[in-house]
C-alpha cells in the first residue's frame, strides 16, 4: 500500500503578465520504507514537487494523499501538525539553530513533535540518535564549532529523532565534498532502513542514486522515468 500518493499535481507561478507552469500534472506513489530520489536538470520541478509533498507550499491543482488523508485540503495548522509529528526535513544547508547545542537541537524537535517521553527518556533518546549519527561526543557543542559534515549529521539526527513517517531531503549533500556526501548518504540509508522511514530525496548528484530504491527522473514539469531499483 502507498504511504504517499500524488495525483495530477500542477503548480503555476505568475511571472509578470505570463503564467509559468512548473509542474504539469505529476502522478507519483511512494511505498512505506522506500528511498526515492527525484532527479533532473535545474528547473525541472523536482524541488517544487518535494515542497508540495511536504506541505511547505500548496499545489495549484491536484491532490496529495498522505496516509489516505488529503494534505491539499488541509488548513495551515493541520499541515503544521503533520510536519511536526510525521515529517522530517534535511536541507542543502544544515540550518541548525545557532544558539542551541547539539543536544538542545534534538530536544527542541522532540518538544515540537509533542512527544510523550519524559525528560529523562528524551535525553536517552537523544543520546541514542547521536550515537547513531556518530555525534554523541559533540552533544554540548554549538553549531558554530562544528564542521560542515558534522552539522549535516546533526541535521539528520534532528530530522529523525521524533521517528517521522517520511523524511524529505532537498539536496542534502550539495554543500559537502564527495567523501562527506557518501558518508551522509550511507548514514541516511542506514537510519531510514533501520527505522523504516520513507524517504524522498532531491539530488542532482548521479553518484548518490546508488543509495536509493526508486529513481524518479523529471524534466520540464513532468516525470520522464519512474524506475524502481532492486538492491
Amino acid at each position, binding site marked *: 500500500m502507498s504511504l504517499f500518493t500524488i495525483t495530477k499535481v500542477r503548480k503555476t507561478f505568475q511571472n509578470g503578465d505570463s503564467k509559468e507552469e512548473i509542474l504539469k500534472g505529476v502522478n507519483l506513489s511512494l511505498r512505506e520504507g522506500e528511498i526515492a530520489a527525484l532527479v533532473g536538470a535545474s528547473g525541472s520541478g523536482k524541488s517544487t514537487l518535494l515542497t508540495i509533498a511536504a506541505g*511547505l507550499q500548496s499545489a495549484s491543482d491536484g491532490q496529495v494523499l498522505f496516509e489516505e488523508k488529503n494534505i491539499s485540503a488541509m488548513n495551515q495548522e493541520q499541515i*503544521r501538525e503533520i510536519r511536526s509529528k510525521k515529517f522530517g526535513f534535511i536541507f542543502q544547508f544544515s540550518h541548525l539553530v*545557532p544558539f542551541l547545542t547539539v543536544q538542545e537541537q534534538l530536544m527542541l524537535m522532540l518538544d515540537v513533535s509533542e512527544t510523550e517521553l519524559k525528560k529523562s527518556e528524551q535525553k536517552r533518546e537523544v543520546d541514542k540518535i547521536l550515537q547513531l549519527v556518530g555525534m554523541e561526543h559533540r552533544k554540548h557543542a554549538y553549531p558554530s564549532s562544528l564542521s560542515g559534515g558534522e552539522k549535516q549529521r546533526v541535521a539528520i539526527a534532528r530530522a529523525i529523532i521524533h521517528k517521522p513517517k517520511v523524511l524529505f531531503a532537498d539536496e542534502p549533500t550539495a554543500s559537502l565534498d564527495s567523501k562527506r556526501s557518501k558518508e551522509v548518504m550511507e548514514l541516511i540509508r542506514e537510519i531510514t532502513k533501520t527505522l523504516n522511514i520513507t524517504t524522498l530525496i532531491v539530488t542532482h548528484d548521479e553518484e548518490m542514486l546508488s543509495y536509493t530504491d526508486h529513481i524518479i527522473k523529471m524534466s520540464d514539469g513532468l516525470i520522464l522515468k519512474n524506475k524502481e531499483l532492486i538492491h
Partner: protein
Amino acid sequence: MMNLAFKEIKKNKVRFLILGSIIFLVSLLTYIISGLANGLSQDNASLIKDLPEGHFYMNPEAEETYNLSRIDSSLQEEIVNDYQDATALSIQMGFLDDRNGKQQSVVFVTSTESEIFNDVKDGEILLDRSLEDKGIKVGDMLTNPQFSGEFIVKGFVDQTKFSHAAVAFINMEDYKEIYKVNEMQLVFIPKENSPHEITGLQSFTKQEFLKTIPSYSAEQMTLNMIVWFLVVISGMLYAIFFYMMNVQKIGLYGILKAIGVKTSRLFTMMWTQMFLITITSLALSIAISQGFNTIAPEGMPFSLTIETTLILSGVFLMIGFIGTTIASLQIKKIEPLQAIQQGEM
C-alpha cells in the same frame, strides 16, 4: 517546553546587554527628568498643590491673572459667611530684610481665619523651612520697607513654596499695610466637587488655577514633553532592535516553522526576551533613581514618588510590548520555503 528565549539570551549576551543598557539609560533619564518635573512643580506651587480639593474664585476682570483680581469686601464677607470653610486670600511677591540687611525673596500669603491656612497674629510671620537653611531662626526680627513695624519669626512650615520662592504667612492687616489694598485677591472653598455659581466671580479647579501661575504650565509642559518623548523613543528602540534581530533571523524562523514550530511560540519567545530585558533594566534604574531621590541635595527640586515610578514602568512595559509586537509581525509572513531557499544562517 524548552525556553528558546533564555537560550538565545545566554548565547548572545552582548547583543542583549546592549539593548538592556540602552533601555536602562533611557528609563533612568526618564525617571530623573520626571523627578525633576515633579520637584519643580512642588517648588513652583506646593502652596496650592498641598491644599485640599476645592475651587478657587477670582474676579473675571482680572483675566485669569490672580494678582490683578480684587474681591469686593461685601461679597467676600457674604461668601465667607455662607460657605463652610471658605477662605479669602492674597498672594503677592515681596522681600524681607534681616537685621544684617540681607534680603530674602518671599511670597507673602495672607488669609481670613481658616483651618487650611496658618493663623498668624499681627506682627508675626511664619516662613517656609527653606529660609531656616539661609540662617533665619525662630525669634529673629525681619522688616519690609513698606511695613511700619517688624515681623517676629514664630516658626517654619515644611514644603510651602510658590513661584519658586519661600512662602511667608502674615496677618491680613499687615498685608493690607504693605500692599496698600483693602480687598483680597481670591476665595478658596474646599470640599466641593462642583463649583458654586457665585455672581461676579469666575471659578477654577486647583489644576486650572495652577495653570494661571506664570511659568508653571510652560515649565511642566516642557519637562513632561521630554518624559513622553523618552518613552516613545524607548518604544521605537524596541521596535528597531527586534526588527533588526528578526531580519537576521528570517532564515532561522523559516526553518523552525518548516519543522513545525508554532508562530505563537516564536512570538512568545520575543515577548519573553522583551519582558526579561525591560524588567531587569527598569529594576536597576528604579533602584538608582529612588536612591537618588533619598540622597538628592536639600535645595534640589527633585521628587520621585513610587507611584510615578510604577506608572512610568507600566508605560515602558506596554510600549516595549507594542514595539516588539510590531517588529515581530514580519514573523507571521515568513514562509518556510524562503528559509530553505536561503543559504546557511
